[in-house]
């Protein structure tokens, strides 16, 4: 707070209430954390595979999101074509859509009886739903929009004359993209990737709808937490929740300090 900022007790009070609103659930979780049985829970087969699956799938979906989302962001930021705002709307829809709806839509498109899924399944016998790749697809579906909008904003705020300067120096379009555009939007790309990754890590609705809930292949940590609560295994649910919180908080703090300005 700067010295010149007058103290406003009402705002400070409300802000304090707001902070409590976020802090109390954390405290509740910490208070109920079964520290004594933590080693046992963490070495549990199901808990471990859920954690491992969460990490692998969220990272894989982030890679997928970068691979496909950066080109989409580039197209949205740089090209002019009819229907662009519609395309932007559709590709960012999963941000506001209930994830369950996303899962249903994915099933109808890529399921064994789906629009694309059926011909693929009949031709190759391969079906995405209820497999680990299905988890990755579901997570990417929900998480990619965060990367796309962040990278698009980065591309828009970047001075495109740097790309022109590179071209006058003899750089073709790929060299320009690789050596100028990508490094200059690096911070946006990193921020977008981290946002997408944390969204993927917490993904629940689309995953359980599209990929199901099979321990070892599709049961990620959020699913395991939910199942744990349902089946009266509260301690392991609390432990997993705490782990997810720690990871997310670490990411948020690192991100805020480095990329969102204000440290």
């Amino acid at each position, binding site marked *: 707070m700067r010295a010149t900022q007058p103290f406003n007790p009402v705002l400070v009070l409300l802000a304090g209430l707001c902070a409590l609103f976020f802090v109390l659930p954390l405290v509740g979780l910490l208070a109920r954390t079964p520290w004594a049985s933590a080693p046992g829970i963490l070495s549990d087969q199901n808990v471990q595979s859920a954690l491992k699956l969460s990490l692998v799938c969220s990272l894989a979906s982030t890679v997928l999101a970068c691979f496909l989302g950066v080109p989409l962001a580039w197209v949205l930021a740089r090209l002019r074509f009819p229907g662009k705002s519609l395309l932007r709307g559709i590709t960012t829809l999963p941000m506001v859509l209930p994830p369950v709806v996303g899962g249903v839509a994915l099933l109808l498109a890529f399921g064994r009886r789906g629009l694309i899924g059926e011909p693929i399944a009949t031709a190759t016998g391969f079906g995405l739903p209820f497999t680990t790749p299905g988890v990755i697809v579901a997570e990417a579906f929900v998480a990619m929009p965060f990367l796309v909008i962040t990278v698009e904003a980065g591309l828009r705020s970047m*001075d495109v004359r740097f790309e*022109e*300067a590179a*071209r*006058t*120096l*003899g750089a073709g379009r790929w060299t320009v993209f690789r050596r*100028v555009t990508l*490094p*200059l939007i690096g911070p946006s790309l990193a921020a977008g990737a981290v946002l997408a990754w944390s969204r993927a890590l917490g993904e629940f609705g689309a995953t359980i709808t599209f990929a199901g809930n099979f321990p070892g292949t599709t049961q990620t940590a959020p699913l395991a937490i939910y199942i744990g609560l349902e089946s009266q295994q509260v301690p392991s649910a609390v432990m997993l929740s705490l782990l997810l919180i720690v990871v997310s908080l670490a990411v948020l703090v690192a991100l805020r300090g480095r990329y969102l300005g204000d440290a």
Partner: protein
Amino acid sequence: MEARLRLRLGRFDLDVELGVEPGKVAALLGPNGAGKTTVLRALAGLLPLTEGRVVVDGHVLEDAALGVRIPAERRPIGMVFQDYLLFPHLSVLENVAFGLRSRGVRRAQARRAAAVWLARLGLPSVGDARPGTLSGGQQQRVALARALATDPRMLLLDEPLSALDASIRADVRRDLRRHLGEFPGVNLLVTHDPLEAIALADHLIVVEGGRILQAGPPAEVTEHPRSSYVADLVGVNLLRGRAFGDRVEVDGGGRLEVVRAGTGQVFAVIPPRSVSVWRSRPVGSPRNVWVGRATGLDLLGDRVRVRVEGRPGVVAEVTPAAVAELGLAEGMDVWVSVKATDVRVYSV
């Protein structure tokens, strides 16, 4: 370099023809929005022509009629941008090596060549620095080194000095003049500063509204202004009219007695110091005497510029003492006189 450039950008319409010899420095001079930068961008291949062609060093880079268009990255042209646009994520050395790397030169070799260029431009020890840590003058030299490192046939410089502090501009200008002199290809720079243009260039091209108003050696252009833009830059009165022997009928009203005007459309130039201002009709020799109204007085150094509306309207330059003596003030009716021998006349 030979070019005819025709293109349209929104409402702006560019139509110019340029020719610059290798080893020469040409300056595009004109006010903001004249289309100077557009000319550079079109030559560099960053803007497509709707009509015209670009030929550099005997190679056709673009010919709208033939559908030929070499992309920017394959033109033998180096460009120094107004704010230099040094890549902030690369070191100074990597910036200078960028062009060679883009052309497939191996990393180590490109870096060696870049180091040579930096040394040649008097920056032997800044290679590892980030461009943002350099002074404006150093950044300009890095930008120059980066453009020259690709061994271009033509060098384009967009307002090369405008991003610099006034205090260092003269020094940087002198260095730049030397570097441009050593470059064997075509130099084309853009500026809105006539002093910069005259100091750096062998050839002036005055542009306004997407058209070339005048081109020639600096002395020729300043001696015989053909536009009010150049006349204002040089600080003379430029009138246009029709000559009838020893008389010029000025467009917009008024007549001037002159010496040997010839016939036809002419420009008449009157230096402001040759215009005398009086409270009452002067007696004596001046052949041109007319009445007008003083509409503006500006102190300019140790002289006062007096704008007089009349037929024709002119600017006079008098001493502050004369202003005091005459009791001159804005809005006052005055007489002006100009000797016939002080009016320079040349055909349009």
